């Protein structure tokens, strides 16, 4: 054992180095640091109330399982929601991880199958709409998460977005000066007509930290990346930010957290108030600016298309 690698708190052998904290930590004190960061986020931004009925969007990956685990550990009542996206073996395996996590802990997991309930999957939707698969995936998940939360009487929808996710989205929105998106990029979006409260308790943890949380806690998660996300812009922004982080530790945290504290309040007045412009979708009743919402239009287009195997989409993205 290297004698220099000691926990900052207890001086026992460290298991992880966190350059942005300029410190190493043992397993016990690393977990403690993660809990403190999540509690700080929840308290500072008033993300959750003790009596919130929470629905966690679960993918089977590290972030969603880590946030579910953390919330349960911190004493919150939280059920899980898994959406089967039909991305070949990847989705089959990711569902297994989510189910096993829930079953091992006696937690409730709600499942929705895109193919089973809406007649399409993400590879088919990508082909049918001639857009990148992440576009149909994001649209489907946002709609189904909102719907499941409202239908189930949940008062908070939790996602596992971490510091890297938020910093990457912030970089992308800043590069294009997407003022309305920037104004909405907050750890909490309050509930409003047709939308549940949405919160991101992991925004103070990097994805290296959420992955490490899972390893230390013995959480088995799907490590493999989505086979059709490869090469997307979001991953490019993350690589750019991590290259900057390697040169200057703490850059990602400063970029995102200072945005939320200093810039987001200045943008609040620029947030488009589209509530008056929203009406109910003629087909599903969800809020929409048109007659039929984007999700129902996607369902109509994708479910009418012949089924497309994921391999076809993967070949097209190489």
């Amino acid at each position, binding site marked *: 054992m290297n004698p220099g*690698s000691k926990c900052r708190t207890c001086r026992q052998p460290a*298991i992880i180095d966190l350059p942005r904290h300029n410190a190493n930590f043992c397993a016990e004190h690393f977990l403690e640091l993660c809990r403190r960061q999540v509690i700080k986020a929840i308290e500072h931004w008033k993300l959750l109330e003790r009596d919130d009925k929470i629905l966690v969007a679960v993918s089977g990956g590290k*972030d969603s399982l880590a946030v579910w685990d953390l919330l349960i550990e911190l004493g919150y009542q939280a059920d899980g929601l898994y959406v089967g996206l039909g991305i070949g073996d990847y989705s089959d395996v990711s569902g297994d991880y989510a189910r096993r996590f829930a079953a091992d802990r006696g937690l409730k997991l709600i499942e929705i199958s895109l193919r089973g309930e809406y007649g399409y999957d993400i590879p088919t939707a990508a082909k049918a709409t001639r857009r990148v698969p992440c576009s149909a995936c994001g649209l489907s998940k946002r709609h189904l998460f909102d719907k499941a939360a409202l239908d189930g009487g949940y008062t908070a929808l939790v996602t596992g977005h971490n510091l890297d996710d938020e910093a990457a989205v912030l970089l992308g929105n800043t590069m294009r000066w997407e003022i309305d998106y920037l104004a909405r990029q907050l750890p909490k979006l309050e509930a409003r007509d047709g939308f549940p409260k949405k919160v991101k308790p992991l925004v103070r943890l990097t994805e290296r930290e959420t*992955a490490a949380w899972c*390893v230390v806690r013995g959480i088995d998660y799907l490590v493999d*990346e989505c086979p059709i996300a*490869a090469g997307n812009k979001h991953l490019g922004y993350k690589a750019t930010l991590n290259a900057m982080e390697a040169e200057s530790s703490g850059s990602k945290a400063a970029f995102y957290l200072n945005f939320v504290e200093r810039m987001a309040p200045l943008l609040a007045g620029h947030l488009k108030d589209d509530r008056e412009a929203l009406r109910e979708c003629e087909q599903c009743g969800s809020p929409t600016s048109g007659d039929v919402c984007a999700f129902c239009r996607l369902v109509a287009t994708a479910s009418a298309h012949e089924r497309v195997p994921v391999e076809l989409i993967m070949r097209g993205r190489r």
Partner: protein
Amino acid sequence: MQVHLRNPTRVLEIEGRRKVHALLTELGLNRESHLVIRNGTLVPGDGELDATDVIEIRPVISGGA
């Protein structure tokens, strides 16, 4: 040492001992986007890896947003 990598999945044989950060640098991997795991336990950046160790280098980057 035997080093297991992903994306794509492969196994490398590396001669001799290394510190974790030196191994990552040698392989061109950013420490911010990887964890190094030995026998199910994380190894910090200045942790010493033995020539006989079996190591997993696990990427931590997710593509969704």
